[in-house]
């Protein structure tokens, strides 16, 4: 199983029936492929849609039914559409149960940087700052390291997305929580040792009383 699949499958296990969930671009989008059987969730696309469905088959795309990247999507029965003010009122106003976002860095307290690399990549924050600030639960989906360098660091060198701490970081190696403001190792991926996770992490890791193996 590749890193992205491990991450997406593990995060999918956080989904509960009836949740309103927003998935970011990249690995987060893959989470929708692994919704547990019998669990029905509402996926929001911040361009103004609740009830996004799979990518339409060839020839079935509609030019005014798109995701936040402008790509064609479908709408499931019971879907609704609305303007951008409503969309972000849902996000900031305590109506969004969970958001899953990509990450560049997460610090020891769980603060996320995911929207710019000064001098290199300045795409704009889009909806990321509102999502991290406003969602009831924030989960970061990212690879544990980038080019061998840890992404879970003592202090973020990159500009923060929000001062609100995320709830969970899921990587191909581990699940790390931030319940009491400290990075806490909760689970390791199958075949991965605690030592491997610690070595790939710059931030000090508190170890949970019982570190479980990630169920996928």
């Amino acid at each position, binding site marked *: 199983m590749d890193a992205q699949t491990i991450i997406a499958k593990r995060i999918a296990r956080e989904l509960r029936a009836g949740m309103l969930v927003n998935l970011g671009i990249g690995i987060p989008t893959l989470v929708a492929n692994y919704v547990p059987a019998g669990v029905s969730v509402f996926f929001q696309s911040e361009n103004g849609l609740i009830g996004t469905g799979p990518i339409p088959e060839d020839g079935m795309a509609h030019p005014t*039914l798109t995701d936040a990247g402008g790509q064609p999507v479908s709408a499931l029965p019971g879907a609704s559409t609305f303007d951008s003010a409503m969309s972000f009122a849902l996000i900031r106003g305590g109506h969004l149960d969970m958001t899953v976002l990509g990450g560049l860095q997460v610090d020891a307290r769980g603060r996320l940087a995911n929207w710019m690399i000064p001098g290199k*990549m300045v795409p704009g924050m889009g909806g990321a700052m*509102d999502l991290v600030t406003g969602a009831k639960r924030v989960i970061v989906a990212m690879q544990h390291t980038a080019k061998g360098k840890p992404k879970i660091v003592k202090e973020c060198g990159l500009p923060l997305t929000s001062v609100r701490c995320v709830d969970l970081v899921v990587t191909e190696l581990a699940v790390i929580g931030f319940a009491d403001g400290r990075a806490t190792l909760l689970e390791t991926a199958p075949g991965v040792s605690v030592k491997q996770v610690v070595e790939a992490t710059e931030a000090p890791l508190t170890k949970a009383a019982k570190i479980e193996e990630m169920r996928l």
Partner: protein
Amino acid sequence: MKTISLESAAAMIPDGASLMIGGFMGVGTPERMIDEIVRQRKGKLAIIANDTAIPGRGIGKLVAGGLLNKVVASHIGLNPETQQQMIAGKIAVDLVPQGTLIERIRAGGSGLGGILTPTGVGTVVEEGKRRIELDGKSYLLETALRADFALVHAFLADYAGNLSYALTARNFNPVIAMAADTVIVTADHIVPVGVIAPDHVVTPAAVVDYLVANR
């Protein structure tokens, strides 16, 4: 509300005007208006919109034409030409969190001086802004936005100027329709009054200044 030709509608926009433009990655953007603005070579425009789409589509055509000197948007990442012109100093780009951007526009159209939002507190977005503590929570004071013109695209417009929108092509359109001195609308279909039931009108005709005739 007056009906107007596409050419006359674009001719009303002077060089240097500020424009709010509907659309999200080009979906729900008034494409015909954009094409006509490019054809008439309007210059030094300041635009307020969610994004600058991709090269060759929607607002991307205004960027490619070199017609912009200011962009207020939440995302320019999918249009390398916007980033190149920003780095070259041709376009001043003000990046605003999407929820803050749309709410500042809503405030501008609603007679409010601004809004208080927790988004951006403690980040680079806070620079130069007032932080206000209220009931133990921190907020940024974000000021209202208005523009000279709003370029709106609807799905249906009736002869009176009532508007409804299609699916995700709604996005910024009904919000910007409230926040500009002059509101110019294009629509996929122009229909008799009554076809859009009163319950289904999203933007009331009273806020529309010009409806561009279809060909």
